[in-house]
């Protein structure tokens, strides 16, 4: 098991390195390069010269990358241009909020999507199936900013049940308030992702329902709820793990629009702020951090597979 995880990590290393190179090189694509980005458009040549030397930008490119990567590995992603705080600190500040929102959104998505998938897979082609498929299409089709605004209008402005701007409250400190502030942004994301979950799981379930082992289970005289619950669902959930993992990674990587609509203090909003103020070290740091999140969640998905499916060996 440990060996398996180590091997998977070793396989991910080249990908991560390559991506980090691209992220680092990004700053050279900016007009004026990294120095231009720091000093602005109206800087004098002397200022530019001074900053170039201070940042070591006169060194060979690979040396610069090596220095940046070396620091990044130690958790030093540089200072934010805006407020001179360490980038790493700024990111870590936002992580709990983002993780909390991501997990809440996934849970709501599963809560809506899985029952829809099961109901429509058990009666494919029926009116119920068509109605539920329409829900999935709607869930995927509604832009999240629009649904978010509608929710705010209804629950915050009209009914005044929920706060319009979400703040981060840890679920471990004050569960009630945390849920209140999470409800709308998590629901907005959850609705969207429930459409994806319902579609994938429905297709996977329909495939499994035609499998021979299902006929065997019925021939044993198992009640239908055991046939579906014990036999079909377990097999259908295997490919589904990948989708759930990917969606979780994408939410933690930043639910940009939703966080903006609800002014939720997550990683997504941090990234948007960084982009709008051209805070390049912060952009680089945030993207690198998101990359690492993707890699780690993918690894967790693979480990979960090997754990759930007895046919996969930790070879």
């Amino acid at each position, binding site marked *: 098991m440990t*060996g398996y995880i*180590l*091997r998977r990590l*070793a396989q991910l290393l080249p990908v991560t390195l390559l991506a980090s190179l691209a992220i680092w090189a990004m700053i050279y694509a900016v007009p004026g390069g990294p120095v231009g980005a720091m000093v602005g458009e109206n800087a004098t040549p002397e200022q530019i010269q001074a900053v170039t030397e201070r940042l070591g930008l006169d060194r060979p490119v690979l040396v610069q990358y090596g220095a940046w990567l070396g620091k990044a590995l130690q958790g030093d992603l540089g200072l934010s241009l805006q407020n001179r705080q360490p980038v790493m600190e700024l990111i870590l500040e936002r992580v709990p909020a983002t993780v909390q929102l991501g997990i809440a959104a996934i849970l709501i998505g599963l809560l809506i999507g899985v029952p829809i998938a099961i109901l429509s897979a058990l009666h494919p082609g029926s009116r119920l199936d068509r109605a539920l498929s329409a829900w999935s299409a709607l869930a995927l089709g509604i832009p999240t900013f629009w649904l978010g605004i509608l929710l705010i209008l209804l629950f915050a402005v009209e009914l005044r049940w929920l706060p319009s701007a979400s703040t981060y409250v840890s679920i471990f400190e004050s569960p009630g308030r945390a849920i209140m502030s999470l409800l709308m942004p998590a629901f907005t994301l959850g609705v969207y992702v429930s459409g994806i979950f319902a579609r994938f799981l429905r297709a996977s379930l329909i495939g499994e329902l035609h*499998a*021979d*082992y299902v*006929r*065997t*289970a*019925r*021939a*044993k*005289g*198992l*009640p239908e709820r*055991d046939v579906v619950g*014990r*036999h079909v669902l*377990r*097999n259908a959930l*295997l490919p589904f793990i990948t989708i759930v993992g990917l969606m979780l990674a994408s939410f933690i990587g930043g639910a940009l629009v939703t966080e903006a609509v609800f002014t939720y203090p997550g990683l997504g909003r941090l990234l948007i702020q960084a982009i709008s103020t051209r805070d390049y070290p912060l952009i680089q740091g945030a993207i690198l951090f998101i990359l690492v999140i993707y890699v780690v969640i993918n690894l967790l998905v693979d480990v979960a597979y090997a754990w*759930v*499916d*007895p*046919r996969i060996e930790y*070879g």
Partner: protein
Amino acid sequence: MAEPLLSIRGLEVTFRGAGRPVPAVRGIDLDVAADEVLGIVGESGSGKSVTSLAMTGLLPGTAEVRGSIRIGGVEVTGAAPEVLRHMRGRDVGMIFQDPTTSLNPVLPIGRQVTEGQVAHGLLRTAEAPGRAVELLAEVDIPDPAGRALQFPHQFSGGMRQRAVIAMAMAGRPRLIIADEPTTALDVTVQAQVLALLRRRQAATGAAVILITHDLGVIAETADRVAVMYAGKIVEAAPVAEIFARPRHPYTVGLLKSLPRLDQEARRLVPIQGQPPTPGAIPSGCSFHPRCPIGAARERCRSEEPVLRAAGPSGVAACHFTHEVEALLAATPEANAAVSTPRAAPAEPLLVVDGLRVHFPIRRGLLRRQTGLVRAVDGVSLEVRAGETLGLVGESGCGKTTTGRAIMGLIKASGGSITFAGQDITRLDAAGLRAVRRHVQYVFQDPYASLNPIRTVEEIVAEPLHIHGVYDAMGGAGRVARLFDLVGLSRTMLGRYPREFSGGQRQRVGIARALALEPRLLILDEPVAALDVSIQAQTVNLLMDLQAELGLAYLFIAHDLSVVRHISDRVAVMYLGRIVEEGTRDELYARPVHPYTQSLLSAVPVPEPGVSGRRIVLEGDIPNPASPPSGCAFHPRCYRATARCAEEAPAFVPYPGLATRVACHHAGPLTADELPAAPAANEALA
């Protein structure tokens, strides 16, 4: 007599989908008594599996069932789902065809064996694990306590089917329905599983319905036989009667189209045409378009015959039952090609010498090579121009890998492959391509090996385009002539594979292989996926083509009867090596390797009462990643001595025969090696 255990009257099953209703079963009557084995024979689409699913209420919702099915006095048709569920697993146990797919891959075997009983409230959850071990022990699974916790992928095919049998028997059902229970298994494993099934049936006194296309299995196992065609029973009789004096032309057709191990070479007599699809059943007698008696008769075309008493205790549905006997005696036209051993030409076309194909096993962080799968481990064979070499063996023995290595589709790890005097293992890509013009491959599965989005004309023309000789070899005219050659109508050229039946698709595959005028065809199980009557048509076509075009065949198959029918010489493979090779007649009449002897003895012969004496090999084929020491066959061999475990035997000529064999103790089978007939029956009971 009391009411039979199972009684079916006027059963009709119609599928109502989006289009026209499709009748799958069109009115059948059946009775099965306790302790009786009823065999149901039929080709695909005859309605035999639908009948079995109707008995247990497992048909999909689109099926409409009419008539009466009574099991143990309880009416099944129209019963509430809960009543049917209580019947399944308790009164009726089912065994399905493919044990690989019929077990759930993510649940432990032991749990799958007992969960039905738990669901029925016949077993407490706490007692289930112990009961699972008992049940697995009853079906001879070694180390049942350890095995009960394992998953299906850790079982071999034969063990999986034993587990399925244990599952079906768990509730001591009064009726067992076995749908093609051994079709997916190798012949030596089939023998084990059939013996087990008979033993458990005898122990429980259950009634058995055995559904199969294999007349050999029926002859050995069934007490009574029902033959189904186009959704109806066309003949039913005790097993001895139906094989000795069939009363329906279709039964005669099935028997005559079957290549047999126990008969001298004769041309197979296929049934003409295709089995009807359930949506388009001919008028009158549904068999009349294919029937030698009824094809031209007005009565057969217009009037549907009913089942009438025929023979001492059978029934048949034919207007002209009295003419069937003459049909059975009729011999096929004499001028047709029959496989007779030919005088060998001096020059072999293909010489394979010491061929090895090893696949590395990689493990660990750095993917270090930790072992080798010796898929092919020193195979030597020769195919001469115009002759057929049959390569037989059970699954996993390396026969397909050998074929693919000869084709250059897999790289050889060692040894040489010489085609027409040229060593092709040393050729570069261009050289290999030039050789491939002369060596072509026909694949097993005619459904998967044709590209579904291209017309058959494009499929057959593709090799011509690849080699840039489309115009040079006659273009569209060449493709049309290939269609004539394999017996397909030119009007079908523009159609897509899905519009063809299995037999027709295999003809397309053969036409594609012949497009480049090859000298050698590698035929990898070309008839294994086809129905008996279609199989005979294809085998005859292959033999005619060989006679006409002077082709050499390497015929790879697991079916010893088909191999015997088509081959001039035969090589038997076991675990990556050839253990015995000889002329067809010598090898089948006087096998000297114990493995060949057991293989031949395991084949069920379609002749009731003939095969009582049988060597049933223990265990399964070992894993080629860790083959046994010395002779790879020694752990399963009845002649094995200490020497066999240490020293691998050389592949050398056997004195007095034109046979080569790899065995320290080669020699004809002696009387005391065969279990005596009564003893065998005792072992089976």
